[in-house]
Every structure is written in C-alpha cells, then in structure tokens.
C-alpha cells in the first residue's frame, strides 16, 4: 500500500534521523553519500524543532523517498518551500507504476503542489520554491515544471 507518513514535532522522536537513515540507500559516491547523511540528520532535527514537516513516501515496506516542507517567502511573496527532497538510491530515475508512472521526485513535487494548494485555500500563498543542490538537479526540476529567475539559483512554480 502506498502512503505518505507525516512527521511533525508532535509525533517525532530524536530517533527519526537514525530510523530514516537505517531504512534508505544513499548514493554510491562516498562524498555524496556523506552529504545526504548530513542533510537527513539536519532535516530530522528541523522536524523536531517545528521548522519543517516531513512526508515519508512508503510503498509496503520500502521507503521510496521523502520531502520536507516549510512556509517561506520569496521577496514579499508567501511561498511553500521544499526544504529537502530525497529519493532512495535504488528508486532514483525509475518511473513506478504505483506512482502513476511518475518518478519518485516528480510524485513528491506534485504532492507538494497539493499541500500548497490546501494551504492556499486557508492563507495567502503564491509559489512553491526550492533551491536545487546542483546544476544537474536544476534541469531535473525544470523538466518537472519549475521556472527560474535569471541570476538566481532558486526555482519556483506559480500556484
């Protein structure tokens, strides 16, 4: 069964980072793997502090990936920010039937759009924003539908 398990400061223990790290496969590249470990540990601490909410995408016993979201703004425009999006290494680049034949990253972005849409009905919200980790990911997110501001690394989707 496919589900998004929601973690907030209210239902998260200090073990979240350990539990997530023990259930996912990181990059093969040792440097990238270390970066991912640092990011996952940090984002789990941010969940405990109520700075972000984490949604773990699970299919049966597999963690496909997760996305962490927080409220932010770009300029004066209220925005929903993707703090971190991670795809389990063994599912990277794969379109999965259980995700409507989308890649895990696309599914998590579309889920983030849905969350933004729900918030938009309750409070002002104009954009979904993120800062890609590298140039390769810039193109991946542009292919999903993000736009970029010239001379800025930040990408956005107008809601």
């Amino acid at each position: 069964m496919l589900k998004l398990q929601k973690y907030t400061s209210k239902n998260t223990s200090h073990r979240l980072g350990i539990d997530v790290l023990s259930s996912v496969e990181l990059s093969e590249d040792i440097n990238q793997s270390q970066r991912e470990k640092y990011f996952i540990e940090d984002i789990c601490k941010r969940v405990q502090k109520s700075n972000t909410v984490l949604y773990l995408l699970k299919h049966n016993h597999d963690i496909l990936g997760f996305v962490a979201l927080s409220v932010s703004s770009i300029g004066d425009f209220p925005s929903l920010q993707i703090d971190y999006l991670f795809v389990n290494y063994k599912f990277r680049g794969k379109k999965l039937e259980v995700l409507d034949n989308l890649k895990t990253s696309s599914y998590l972005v579309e889920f983030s759009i849905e969350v933004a849409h729900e918030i938009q009905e309750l409070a002002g919200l104009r954009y979904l924003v993120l800062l890609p980790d590298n140039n390769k990911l810039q193109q991946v997110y542009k292919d999903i539908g993000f736009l970029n501001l010239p001379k800025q690394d930040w990408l956005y989707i107008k809601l």
Partner: protein
Amino acid sequence: MALVIKDDKVVYIAPPKKLTSKEKKMLEDAPVNHKLIKRATSRKYNVV
C-alpha cells in the same frame, strides 16, 4: 532544497528577500502550469 554544506556544517538557506523590480515582474507574470497543477491536485494522496 534549502540546505548546503559549508565548513562541514549544514547551513539553511532562505529564498532571496530582496528582488529587483524586474524579478518581481517576472514572478508576477509567470504562467501558471494548469496541466501540472490539475494533475497534482486531482490525485488522492494517502497521508497518515
């Protein structure tokens, strides 16, 4: 993502607070990707 590593520490980066008038106009005038938003918002997500 809003996280980067500097000096072996994870640092949180916020979106730019100051935008030029040209950047503001670009954001205001940006098209809404209705197809993407419709697909994203018409799916049922099993959040638990």
